[in-house]
C-alpha cells in the first residue's frame, strides 16, 4: 500500500508538469483541445493525491512502523482517531495534506467554471498545477512521507505524537487552517488567469469573490479553533498570545477580509480593480510566507519545526517566485485596469471602505513587522529581539477600535455621497445605543473598567445598533408592502441579498467576540499553595482542596487533583485539573479544569504537587470568555449565509 503511495506521488509530479505545460500552451494558442488535456490533468493529479493520502492513512491505521514518518508520529497505544490525525502531525504529512487540498480545490474550481470562463480555465490549470508540482517536488525528493526506515531500524512500536496534539480540537484545527490557507490558491489562479488573458471583465471577479469566501470561512474557523485549543490545552489561561504561528494564520486572514470588503466597491462602482488584485496576490503570498516562517524555524515559535536550512530556502524561493510572477503580470496589465470612476465624496460608503482597507493593512503591517522583528534586529544589531504581546496589543489596539467603529459606520453611509439629512436619520439610533451603553457602563463599573473594555463594549453596542436598524427597516419595508409576516420577510432578505444580510450576521459575531475580548480587562489570576482541607477564596468563590490521586495508567500517567468549587457556600462543581506525563514521549502536560458560565470562566491548573504533599495551583477568573466562542459560532453562521448557493451566482457558474 505504501509503495502505491510513493508511486502515486511520482506519477502525480509527471502529470502536474505535463498539465501545467498543456495549460500554458492552450492559453497562449487558445486551443480548446489542449485546455481539456490540462483540465483532465488537474483531475488526475487530484485522484493520485487522494490515493497517496489513502495509502498514508492506511499505514497509520495498520501500524506500518517500517515507514519513518509513521514510526515517528504515532504509537500502538494511541486511539485510532489520533493515529489518523497524526497524518498532519508532522512536516511530510502536512505537505501531503496541502497538496491534496490544493488539487481538491483545483478540481472543484475547474469543474465549476469550465463553461463560463473558458478562456481563463487553461491559465487557471497552469497556475494550480505549477503550485501542485512544487509540493510534489518537496514530497518526492525532500520530505517523502513514504520513506522507509533501514530494515535494522524498524521497531514494533512508534515514537508517539506530541501529547499536546492528542486532543479532539487538534484533529480538526489544522484541517480547517489548511483548508483556509490552501484555498486561496483558487482566487490567486483566477486573478492570474484574468491578467494573463487580459479578460478583466466581471467573470473572474465573481469567481474570485466566491472562491475567496470559501477559504476565508475555513481560515476563520481554524483561527477560532486554534484559540480554543490553546485555551483548553496549553494551560496558560489565555487564547491568543501573538505567537508567530498565530500571526502567520492571522495575516492572510486580514488581507482576505480587506479584499472581501473592497471587492464590493468594484462590484458596485468598478473602482479599485488594481488594489483588489494586489490583495488577492498578497493573501496567497502571505499564506505561503506564513508557512515558510513557521516551518523553517526562522522565527522562534512554540510550534515551529526545527529543520534543515535548505527546506526553508527552497520554500522561500517558491514564495518569491509565485509572488514575483503574479505581481509582474499585474504591473504589465496596470494600464488595462484603470478606471474612470473617482471617489465623489469623503462622506460616502466608498471612502468608508477605503478607510477600512487602510485599517486592515495597518494591522497587517503591525503584525508583519512585529513577527519579523527578530529577523530585522538580527540583521541590524546581531541580536534577536522579540516583541511580546504588549507591543501587538498596544499598537494594533487603537486600529482595531477604529475598525470596529467603521463596522458600525460603513453600512449607514450612502454610496457616492451622503446627505446631511440621511446621515441624521441613519445615525440617530445606533449612536444612541453606543453612547447609552458607554454612559451606563461608566455609571455601573465606574473606575473598575479600563479604557479598552469600555471602548470595545460601547463600539460593540453601536455596531449592534447599526445591524438591528438595518434589519428592522428592511423587514418593515417588506411587511408594509403586503402579505409577508416578519419571519417570512427575514427569510426573504437572507435569500435575496445574502451578501449584505449574511455580512451583518458576521458583524454581529464579531461584536460578540469583541464583548468576550473586552472581558480580559477584568481577568484575575492567583497562584496558591494548599494542603488537603485548606481553601482558597477568590471573588465570591471558594475552592477547597480535597485530594490528589494518581491517574489510571494508560498512554499517559500522572496525577489529578480534586478541588470542590463553591460560590457563596453553594456547591458548583468538583474541579479536576490534571498533571499528565506522557510516558512514551517523555513529556509532561498540565490539563486545566474549567468551570464555564456565560458570566465568567474559573480556570484551574495544577502547577505542581510539591514534595511535602501540598499542591500548587494556579487559578484564573476570566470574565466573558464564553462569548468569544458564541461569537465565533455566530460568525460561522453568518458566513454560511454568505456562502449559501444563490440563484444569480449559480447561473454565473462561479
Amino acid at each position, binding site marked *: 500500500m505504501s509503495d502505491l503511495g510513493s508511486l502515486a506521488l511520482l506519477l502525480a509530479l509527471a502529470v502536474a508538469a505535463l498539465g501545467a505545460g498543456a495549460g500554458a500552451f492552450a492559453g497562449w494558442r487558445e486551443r480548446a483541445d489542449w485546455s481539456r488535456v490540462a483540465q483532465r490533468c488537474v483531475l488526475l493529479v487530484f485522484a493520485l493525491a487522494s490515493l497517496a493520502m489513502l495509502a498514508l492513512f492506511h499505514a497509520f491505521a495498520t501500524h506500518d512502523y517500517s515507514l519513518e514518518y509513521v514510526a515517528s508520529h504515532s504509537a500502538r497505544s494511541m486511539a485510532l482517531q489520533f493515529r489518523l490525525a497524526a497524518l498532519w502531525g508532522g512536516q511530510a504529512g502536512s505537505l501531503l495534506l496541502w497538496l491534496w487540498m490544493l488539487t481538491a480545490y483545483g478540481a472543484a474550481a475547474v469543474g465549476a467554471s469550465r463553461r463560463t470562463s473558458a478562456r481563463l480555465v487553461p491559465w487557471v490549470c497552469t497556475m494550480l498545477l505549477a503550485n501542485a508540482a512544487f509540493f510534489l517536488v518537496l514530497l518526492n525528493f525532500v520530505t517523502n512521507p513514504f520513506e522507509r526506515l533501514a530494515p535494522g531500524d524498524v521497531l514494533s512500536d512508534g*515514537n508517539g505524537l506530541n501529547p499536546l496534539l492528542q486532543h479532539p480540537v487538534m484533529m480538526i484545527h489544522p484541517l480547517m487552517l*489548511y483548508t483556509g490557507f490552501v484555498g486561496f490558491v483558487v482566487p490567486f489562479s483566477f486573478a492570474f488567469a484574468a491578467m494573463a488573458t487580459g479578460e478583466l471583465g466581471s467573470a473572474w471577479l465573481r469567481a474570485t469573490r466566491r472562491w475567496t469566501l470559501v477559504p476565508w470561512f475555513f481560515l476563520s474557523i481554524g483561527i477560532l479553533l486554534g484559540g480554543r485549543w490553546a485555551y483548553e490545552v496549553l*494551560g496558560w489561561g489565555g487564547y491568543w498570545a501573538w505567537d508567530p504561528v498565530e500571526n502567520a494564520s492571522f495575516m492572510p486572514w486580514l488581507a482576505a477580509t480587506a479584499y472581501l470588503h473592497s471587492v464590493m466597491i468594484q462590484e458596485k462602482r468598478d473602482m479599485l480593480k488594481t488594489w483588489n488584485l494586489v490583495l488577492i496576490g498578497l493573501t496567497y503570498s502571505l499564506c505561503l510566507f506564513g508557512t515558510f516562517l513557521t516551518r523553517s524555524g526562522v522565527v522562534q515559535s512554540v510550534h515551529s519545526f526545527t529543520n534543515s536550512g535548505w527546506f526553508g530556502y527552497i520554500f522561500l524561493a517558491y514564495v518569491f517566485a509565485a509572488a514575483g510572477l503574479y505581481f509582474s503580470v499585474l504591473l504589465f496589465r496596470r494600464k488595462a485596469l484603470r478606471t474612470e470612476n*473617482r471617489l465623489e465624496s*469623503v462622506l460616502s460608503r466608498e471612502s468608508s471602505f477605503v478607510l477600512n482597507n487602510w485599517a486592515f493593512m495597518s494591522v497587517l503591517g503591525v503584525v508583519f513587522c512585529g513577527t519579523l522583528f527578530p529577523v530585522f534586529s538580527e540583521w541590524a544589531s546581531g*541580536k534577536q529581539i522579540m516583541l511580546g504581546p504588549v*507591543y501587538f496589543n498596544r499598537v494594533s489596539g487603537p486600529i482595531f477600535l477604529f475598525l470596529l467603529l467603521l463596522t458600525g459606520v460603513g453600512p449607514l453611509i450612502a454610496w457616492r455621497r451622503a446627505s446631511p439629512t440621511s446621515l441624521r436619520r441613519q445615525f440617530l439610533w445606533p449612536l444612541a445605543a453606543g453612547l447609552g451603553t458607554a454612559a451606563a457602563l461608566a455609571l455601573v463599573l465606574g473606575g473598575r473598567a479600563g479604557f479598552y473594555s469600555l471602548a470595545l463594549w460601547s463600539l460593540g453596542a453601536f455596531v449592534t445598533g447599526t445591524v438591528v436598524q438595518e434589519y428592522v427597516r428592511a423587514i418593515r419595508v417588506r411587511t408594509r408592502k403586503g402579505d409577508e409576516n416578519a419571519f417570512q420577510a427575514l427569510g426573504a432578505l437572507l435569500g435575496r441579498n445574502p451578501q449584505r444580510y449574511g455580512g451583518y450576521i458576521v458583524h454581529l459575531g464579531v461584536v460578540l467576540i469583541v464583548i468576550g475580548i473586552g472581558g480580559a480587562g477584568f481577568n484575575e489570576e492567583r497562584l496558591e499553595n494548599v494542603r488537603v482541607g485548606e481553601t482558597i477564596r477568590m471573588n465570591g468563590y471558594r475552592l477547597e482542596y480535597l485530594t490528589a490521586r494518581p491517574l489510571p495508567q494508560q498512554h499517559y500517567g500522572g496525577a489529578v487533583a480534586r478541588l470542590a468549587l463553591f460560590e457563596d457556600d453553594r456547591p458548583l462543581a468538583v474541579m479536576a485539573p490534571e498533571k499528565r506525563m506522557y510516558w512514551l514521549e*517523555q513529556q509532561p502536560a498540565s490539563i486545566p479544569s474549567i468551570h464555564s458560565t456565560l458570566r465568567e470562566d474559573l480556570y484551574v491548573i495544577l502547577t*505542581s504537587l510539591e514534595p511535602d504533599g501540598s499542591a*500548587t495551583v494556579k487559578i484564573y477568573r476570566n470574565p466573558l470568555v464564553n462569548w468569544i466562542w458564541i461569537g465565533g459560532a455566530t460568525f460561522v453562521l453568518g458566513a454560511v449565509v454568505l456562502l449559501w448557493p444563490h440563484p444569480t451566482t449559480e447561473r454565473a457558474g462561479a
Partner: protein
Amino acid sequence: MSKGIQIAIGALLVATLLGWYASSNLEEPASFVYYQTLDEFHAAGAVSGPARVHGYVAPGSIERDVPARVVRFRVQNDPPHAGGSAANALPVVYASLETPDLFKDGAEVVVEGELGPGAFHATNVLAKCPSKFESKARGLL
C-alpha cells in the same frame, strides 16, 4: 484637492500618530526583549538591569522551596545531553512556584529577570523541551 488626496492625507495623519504611539511605547521593557546566551551574559560582565538569559537547566539542581515560595536552580550554557558542563553555571532564584510543564533537568530555558547578589533573580522562566521532540512532530502550522 481631489478626494483621493484628502483621504490619503487623513490616512497619513493617522499613520503618523500610530507610529509615534508605537515608538513611544517601545521603551517599556515588557514589549522589548531579547536574549543572550549564558556565555554572552558572562562576557558582558555583571550587567545590572533586566536581562533574558538563555541556557539549560543543570541536572539535579532544581530545588523547590515550598515554604519560601521559590524555586532555585542553576543554568549552564551548553546542553547537558550534549556533554555541556555545569562548571560555570548561573544560580537562579525564581520567586514563584509556577514553573512551566517542560521545566526539568536538562531543559532549554530562558530566564527573565535581573542579576542580584549571589544569584540571578528571575521573574519569569520559559522552557522548551530538550527531548527528541525538538526535531520532530510539531504539527501545528
